[in-house]
């Protein structure tokens, strides 16, 4: 047994389930729940107790997923990211999509969520802008998760997907 790729693959899957699971929770459950909670005056429970914890696991799971994926690619990292080898085309697309999604988490979603949740100071105008940017970035990641997971699956089963 080759321990490094085996453990990397396991960690990649575990962290990836947490990352994308929380992404789907935000998009499929929380957006509608927060709207309903705001309407009946109970949104504070979500923004104070749920979102900070969910975002903590979400953003760090994204980092662990990417690092475990990079470790799994190992010496083929550049083959995948720069499409140097046909055998790594599919996983290369998946890797780029995952990298764009990681960027969205740390550069667009988390900084804007900090404003929305009051972790950093922001005016009402800044909060409204942060809500829109954070929402679109989160929806973009949900959209990109479809091809990303398709190419993650295809990376290990190229003949099945492209044969």
């Amino acid at each position: 047994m080759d321990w490094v790729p085996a453990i990397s693959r396991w960690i990649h899957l575990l962290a990836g389930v947490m990352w994308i699971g929380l992404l789907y929770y935000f998009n499929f459950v929380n957006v509608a729940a927060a709207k309903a909670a705001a309407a009946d005056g109970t949104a504070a429970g979500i923004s104070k107790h749920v979102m900070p914890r969910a975002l903590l696991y979400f953003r760090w799971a994204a980092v662990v997923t990417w690092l475990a994926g990079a470790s799994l690619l190992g010496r083929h990292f550049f083959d995948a990211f720069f499409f140097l080898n046909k055998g790594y085309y599919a996983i290369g697309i998946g890797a780029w999509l995952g990298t764009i999604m990681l960027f969205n988490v740390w550069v667009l979603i988390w900084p804007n969520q900090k404003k929305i949740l009051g972790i950093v100071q922001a005016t009402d105008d800044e909060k409204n802008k942060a809500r829109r940017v954070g929402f679109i970035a989160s929806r973009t990641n949900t959209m990109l998760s479809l091809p990303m997971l398709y190419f993650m699956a295809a990376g290990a089963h190229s003949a099945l997907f492209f044969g």
Partner: protein
Amino acid sequence: MKNPLDSLWGTIISGLIITLILHNIVRFYLGG
């Protein structure tokens, strides 16, 4: 025009379209 990402169905359909486009690009370059 409404942003498709404002709705969940718009998001999912956009993701499926991107998947289809990328699938065909990769298949083309793999010579499949």
